[in-house]
């Protein structure tokens, strides 16, 4: 089934974010081949031009490489993926912290609460 996209961001960016998350979770490994533009378009129910734009954007970021006649592959450069992982973490954390501070929570309260929640969910 086709996944939903939210209205506020271009679809090509949302698709790029999904692929990035897959790479970080290692569902798409280093050097692994991505689906062709057409396959990805059918899978996600979007315009092939949109997928092309997503792939170009990921290529610009150095996350994937397009090899002529062969397709698009995840980079084999571990550093790039490490940086991507770090960058996503930064983005999510800074938004979270900003939201919490806006509500007036202190850093100590935030940390205590994080630990509590993690424990309740049986986390490490």
């Amino acid at each position, binding site marked *: 089934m086709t996944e939903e996209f939210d209205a*506020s961001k*271009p679809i090509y960016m949302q698709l790029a974010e999904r692929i990035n998350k897959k790479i970080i979770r290692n569902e798409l490994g280093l050097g692994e081949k991505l689906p062709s533009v057409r396959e990805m378009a059918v899978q996600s*129910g*979007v315009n*092939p031009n949109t997928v092309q734009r997503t792939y170009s954007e990921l290529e610009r970021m150095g996350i994937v490489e397009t090899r002529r006649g062969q397709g698009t592959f995840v980079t084999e450069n571990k550093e790039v993926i490490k940086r991507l992982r770090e960058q996503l973490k930064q983005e999510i954390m800074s938004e979270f912290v900003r939201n919490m501070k806006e509500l007036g929570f202190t850093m100590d309260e935030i940390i205590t609460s994080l630990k509590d929640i993690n424990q309740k969910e049986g986390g490490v």
Partner: protein
Amino acid sequence: MIELQNVTKRYGNLVALENVSLQLEKGKIVGVLGANGSGKSTLLKLIAGLAFPTKGKVLVDGQEVTRNISQKVAYLSELDAYYHNFTARDMIHFYASQFIDFNKEKANEILDFMQLDPNKKLKTLSKGSRGRVKIALTLAREVPVLLMDEPLSGLDPMVRESIVKGLISFINLEKQIVIITTHEVSEIEFLLDEVILIRDGKVIERALVDQLRETNHQSVVDWLKKMYKGEGK
């Protein structure tokens, strides 16, 4: 690829399109949006050579549109037109006899993709299956311009999804332009590169879908609502 120059179309006293100028390039999927009776179908018919402008010019590939433009333009009507005793396979043979650009193999492939039985008579098929046969016949034509008038209207969500996926799988955007009219944009929003909004025979707005999201943080549906409200008074 497609150009309308100050085109007006009247049917008797009724003005269907008024002074419309448009240019459309290949490689895109364009949605023509608007309420019933806004002039969407007339626009497609003018490009397909099924109607001719009262004033102005319509050009496809630099050539003024006559009935012969059907060699370059495939048109999916919103009406059903078939012989009742025909099967999908008969329709494929019939289309192949009418259009030299018709690719039989592709037609069969699309029917297969949409899980349709080519041996059933069309009159025994559900509306949704007939809709899909029509789409298959249109997509199997290897022409630069594909026009689809309300391909999804009145069909259930499963059928609509199968049509959308069929479209994505079988169009060739390196060579083709696809123009789809609809008054229910939500299903095909993710398919469109560009949207053109028509009201009362006039093109009132045109936008790139990604740009709407990027600069206005709006989906096409949001944009449409706003446009209609803003200009409604």
